[in-house]
């Protein structure tokens, strides 16, 4: 029997209503589902830079079983290139006879604020850490105003426990409100993180998140092969152009120092064993500083470390120019040399201060 035009209209109305209801229902379900997934299952969709490393660390710890000796390094790309975690892991395993997990938890442009946030996250997750290597890189202290890395923490990238910390250092005065604002529209709130994680090719250059450039090994050591002399000269000239002026008038940013001290206080409160390493630089970069200003800065850092019971190691002149790609980032040769010196001058004394570790090793 043919359908009359009135019936057809009624059918169309009913279909439209059902379509819109389905659309609304599915939309709510999708947003809610993604919110739950990000919060409980797939945190990489919120902050891939940290969470990829955190997940890998958990996998290493699970694989190692028992209570492996855990050594982590937080810092900027300098630590990313310098901290050869696998070499250190092998060295520590030989010395102690125990299972060791060493992971490079650095990220590009990370100053003391990023290190504070990441360390706090590790603590909140009860990650077992036997030694935390904290980077003290003067280049992350020379930005005036707010800490330079505060801009790297928009509200959507943060966990609730990060908010109080970031609020103290961020120019965003409404951080908590912004964090809540699109919370139930995660497809929008976390879109940049999701795309950066799932399909970086779809991300415009200006929306790219800071990730370790170049090749990285499974412990996130960023591998920089040595450069040809001509290439090195070009890189040196470029680095000089960027840093000559800021370093000649180097005055450490007080907010950065405040974040650094907060990090040390956190470490002390949690009774974490930590060491602050003043990052190595090539002779060219070292020569750009006004020597008294540099001395005063190192002294200030050492004082803060002393106040909070954390060791301070000055590795500023550990490496030569040909160990760097630009007098700032160590190449593979520099990283190996740095690892050896770190093992001998930091890890060995640290092990000797904790005879329990060695005794347990000898029992095996």
């Amino acid at each position: 029997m043919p359908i009359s035009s009135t019936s057809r209209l009624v059918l169309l109305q009913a279909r439209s209503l059902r379509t819109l209801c389905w659309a609304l229902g599915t939309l709510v379900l999708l947003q809610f589902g993604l919110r739950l997934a990000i919060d409980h299952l797939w945190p990489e969709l919120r902050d891939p830079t940290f969470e990829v490393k955190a997940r890998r660390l958990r996998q290493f710890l699970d694989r190692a079983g028992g209570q492996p000796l855990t050594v982590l390094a937080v810092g900027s790309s300098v630590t990313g290139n310098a901290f050869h975690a696998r070499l250190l892991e092998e060295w520590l395993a030989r010395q102690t006879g125990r299972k060791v997990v060493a992971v490079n938890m650095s990220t590009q442009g990370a100053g003391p604020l990023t290190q504070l946030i990441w360390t706090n996250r590790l603590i909140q997750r009860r990650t077992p850490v036997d030694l935390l290597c904290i980077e003290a890189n003067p280049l992350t202290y020379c930005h005036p105003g707010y800490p330079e890395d505060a801009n790297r923490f928009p509200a959507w990238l943060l966990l609730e426990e990060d908010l109080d910390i970031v609020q103290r250092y961020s120019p965003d005065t409404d951080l908590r409100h912004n964090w809540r604002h699109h919370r139930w529209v995660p497809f929008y709130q976390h879109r940049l993180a999701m795309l950066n994680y799932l399909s970086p090719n779809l991300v415009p250059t200006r929306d790219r998140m800071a990730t370790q450039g170049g090749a990285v090994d499974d412990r996130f050591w960023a591998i920089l092969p040595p450069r040809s002399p001509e290439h090195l000269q070009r890189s040196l000239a470029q680095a000089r152009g960027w840093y000559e002026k800021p370093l000649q008038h180097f005055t450490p940013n007080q907010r950065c120092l405040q974040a650094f001290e907060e990090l040390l206080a956190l470490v002390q409160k949690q009774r974490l064993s930590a060491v602050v390493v003043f990052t190595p630089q090539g002779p060219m970069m070292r020569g750009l500083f006004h020597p008294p200003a540099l001395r005063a800065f190192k002294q200030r850092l050492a004082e803060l470390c002393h106040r909070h019971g954390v060791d301070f190691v000055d590795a500023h002149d550990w490496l030569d120019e040909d160990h760097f790609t630009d007098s700032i980032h160590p190449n593979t040769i520099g990283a190996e040399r740095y690892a050896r010196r770190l093992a001998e001058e930091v890890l060995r004394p640290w092990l000797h201060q904790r005879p329990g570790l060695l005794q347990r090793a000898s029992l095996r």
Partner: protein
Amino acid sequence: MLFCSEVYLYFFLVVFTAYWAIAWHRGRVWLLLVASFYFYACWNQWLALLIGVSTMIDYTLARGMDAPGWHRWRKGLLLVSIVGNLGLLCYFKYMNFFLESLNQSLHALGASTSLPLLQVILPVGISFYTFEAINYTVDVYRRKVPAERNLANFMLFITFFPHLVAGPIVRARDFLPQTHRPKKWNWARLNLGVQFFLMGLFKKLAIADRMACFVDPVFENPALYPSHALWMAMFAYALQVYGDFSGYTDMAIGSAHLLGYKLAQNFNMPYIARDIAEFWRRWHISLSLWLRDYLFIPLGGSRGTNWQTNRNLLITMTLGGLWHGASWVFVIWGIIQGLLLVIHRTFSAWAQTRPLLSRFLHSPLGTVWCVMVTFFIFCLTLMLFRSQSLSQAGLIFHNLFVFVPGTESSPVHVSGLLYTYLVVAVCHAVALLGYRRWLAFKMPAPLAGIAYAVVLCLTLLLTPASGKAFIYFQF
């Protein structure tokens, strides 16, 4: 207040709820009128007042023309209306362009003094609403539409917020009757409005704004980029400008449907046009039709000799180019579009006398070839459209065709561009194969509902960090 912003969402929700809550038809018209003025006043209160005043003048003039009377009196009123509207447009949009051009000419002739430029801001959407006002008064003069007696209805025709700032250019004969018709709640229409709005949102946020992230750095400083980056930016810009403008139109049509109004179609898959004439019948249809009805035909249209038709085409497209913006770049762009139409006309006539060529051009392969050539030529002309000056356009064309290595790497990712083209091609194919009606009206409700939600989520996911204003707002 951009259609794709959160503010617009809240604004629209309030208007939508209040509109359907009011049972009284006149009340609804007044509500829309107030909402439209508020919408425009968000940019500038004084310019909202300007539209109000100019609309009232047009209303009065049209009423005068509608009265039975002396022909010359009616003609005089029409002239006042046209001069008034064009005067407004010229003052705000073109005066500084004319003064600058005059100053440059005077300097070239050795004069040392310059005429001072005006300190005016360009009212958003002025080119659209002045054209709407002109089409109304001309149609009233031609007795094609009766003059609207109700001021609120007329003001709503000009200021209805979905089409106010970037079209489509609405015809009085299409819109005014709708203002008289009481609206009834209709789920099917609501569904259609949501469909249009979602489609527009996807085009704007996921395609146009995404492409803008790739294109903008290249056009800000084209000298820094290698030739291949410019080629990619060109194809990316073609998607951007299409997604941006047709996306805006879809959102406007969707918003209007949600309030029970119908706006005219403004785009019909222009990138599958076989030739430039067909392209202009598919791209910004409301402007093309306006130019045809109120400029090309009054100039003589295609009724005269070949030479006269070609002249009319050139004049129409040059003025169409100038409509887009007050700069020589747009004038030359318009001339090029006119020349392309003339070349196409001449070539078509010539090809018709060559049966083999004509058969090839109408074969499937020939059609694909024609579509590709038309698209490519339009893309090339877009380089001029996007350039900030003639010298920059010259540099871009030079670097497109003469290889330059550049110093910056391309911000356009090949895969990102290809995926986007693929998505657009699939959508076109769906429409061409006739599935659009099925998708819109016959797809099972659960499937359609899920599809809406997925499209919206994808749109949100693909939205770049910072949004961009619609390109056509500047016109």
